[in-house]
């Protein structure tokens, strides 16, 4: 059955990516406020405020610890929001995809374009946080530049599940299930705000099933200038999530649009 074919990647994906970039550019003002304002508030408020109480964590200032965690979680948040709300808007109420499918562009192109776009948007927000963190003196090493491609890669793995949710939901309200049951737990439990090692043993093994834990453990050392451990394992988990959920999302959207 053609619904289950492996997704194709073609040049047309970049046309979809370009469409989304053009729309984003029209709203660059509010986007910049979000990308730079949010981390500034988090880092000032939590980083300095909590930082006084916490002192050093894992051999780095709390500001650095928090900033590096937020870079990783922003990859998740940005990709999840874009993959649910924005993709749903284009797929259902706006019927943008129906209009595009009347041209030589196919479902696989749209999906590949959305995947690239969601990750690109996460790249913008992750980079903005790194810039803000650097200005606050929280970036300890030039290796932080390597965190940028990791943000892109991590966002790829969060885009798939988000699009799966968008394709299943009858309306925006249903995204709450996903955000409350998956995104928020990851945000709170996966080492963004405190080291995973402080969790009970059982919880520790559990959080390593979540991709955000692996994204944090890749990004934090690059920003803090500490030693990167088990890098290939972390990359493997993230790539695994990305491939599996991207495939599922493409199948789901094909079934929704090609009937």
């Amino acid at each position, binding site marked *: 059955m*053609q619904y289950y074919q492996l997704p194709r990647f073609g040049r047309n994906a970049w*046309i979809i990516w*370009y*469409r989304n970039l*053009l*729309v984003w550019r*029209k709203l660059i003002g509010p986007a910049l406020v979000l990308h730079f304002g949010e981390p500034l508030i988090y880092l000032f408020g939590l980083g300095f405020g909590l930082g006084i109480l916490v002192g050093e964590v894992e051999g780095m200032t709390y500001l650095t610890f928090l900033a590096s965690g937020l870079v990783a979680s922003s990859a998740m948040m940005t990709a999840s929001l874009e993959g649910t709300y924005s993709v749903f808007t284009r797929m259902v109420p*706006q*019927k*943008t995809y*129906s*209009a*595009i*499918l*009347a*041209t*030589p*562009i*196919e479902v696989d192109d749209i999906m590949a374009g959305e995947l690239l776009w969601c990750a690109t948007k996460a790249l913008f927000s992750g980079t903005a946080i790194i810039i803000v963190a650097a200005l606050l003196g929280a970036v300890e090493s030039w290796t932080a530049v390597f965190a940028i491609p990791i943000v892109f890669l991590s966002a790829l793995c969060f885009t798939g599940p988000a699009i799966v949710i968008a394709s299943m939901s009858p309306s925006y309200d249903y995204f709450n299930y996903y955000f409350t049951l998956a995104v928020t737990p990851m945000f709170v439990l996966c080492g963004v705000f405190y080291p995973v090692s402080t969790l009970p043993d059982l919880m520790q093994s559990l959080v390593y099933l979540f991709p955000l834990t692996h994204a944090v453990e890749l990004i934090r050392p690059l920003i803090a200038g500490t030693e990167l451990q088990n890098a290939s394992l972390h990359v493997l988990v993230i790539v695994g999530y990305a491939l599996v959920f991207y495939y599922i999302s493409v199948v789901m959207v094909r079934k929704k*649009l*090609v*009937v």
Partner: protein
Amino acid sequence: MKANQRPVIVASKLSKYFGVKQVVSDIDFEVIEGKCFGFLGPNGAGKTTTLRMIQGISPLSSGQLHVFGQPLPEAGKFIRSRLGIVPQEDNLDPDFTVIQNLRMYGTYFGVSKTVLEKRIYELLEFMHLEDRANEKPDQLSGGMKRRLTIARALVNDPELIVLDEPTTGLDPQVRHTIWAKLRELMQQGKSILMTTHYMDEAERLCDELIIMDQGKILDHGAPSDIVTRHVEKHVVEIRGDFSVIIKTLENLVDTRLEKYGDTLFCYADQTGEILDLLSDQTELNTISRPCNLEDVFLTMTGRELRE
């Protein structure tokens, strides 16, 4: 008349199921190049599904479908590159202005930049949208949106234009403008395939018609031939309390009576006798007119309400 009789679409034994429900049942038809071809039918007749199969975005359940001599679904991409599709519902990109909508759509087709810019200006002019080029779709009236959607469908200079109920919900002036534009496109040699449930639209535009209901083709031919085939030459519509004369009317030879709602339709080739009978029934409201597609349509598909 164009001498060319090359078919642009050939469908044979085409069927579509959604689950166990058959929405298109074994239909055969050909659309000839340079002609306007219409699907006429009530809601749920299978018209839109047939159009979606022609676009290659709805897989065929069985049968064959060739467009421009190429098979579907295999050649979907090639076929769509030469089609212009005007959907029933508005799906213009709300984030872009009129001109950006056209530009982006041209990019989806891979039209080169220089060709595209020239074509966009021609299309804006053709659809009288020059003054609106920098407005967003939200700021346009229903008629302007539809004109923009048609302009958008022409951005790849298609050979065949497919329109799904192009004038539904539009006011009479706009409908006439759109009909004039479609006739102009036909003069340029483009083929047109459209669905409609407006009889006047079908009679004005279509060279050939298919009447569809519940997934099946009921009849097929030129609009005037279909009318001659299925109904008498004239009809007298009677409204009011016609119970007093209904018996007399029933006894007339060569007169067919049908009652729909509060109206009695008397079909006959010669209506002299009917009109004589009615001349002293001054309290009845009567209209005498030649039969048209509407009578065919109602006679063939029944007059119960369709949702």
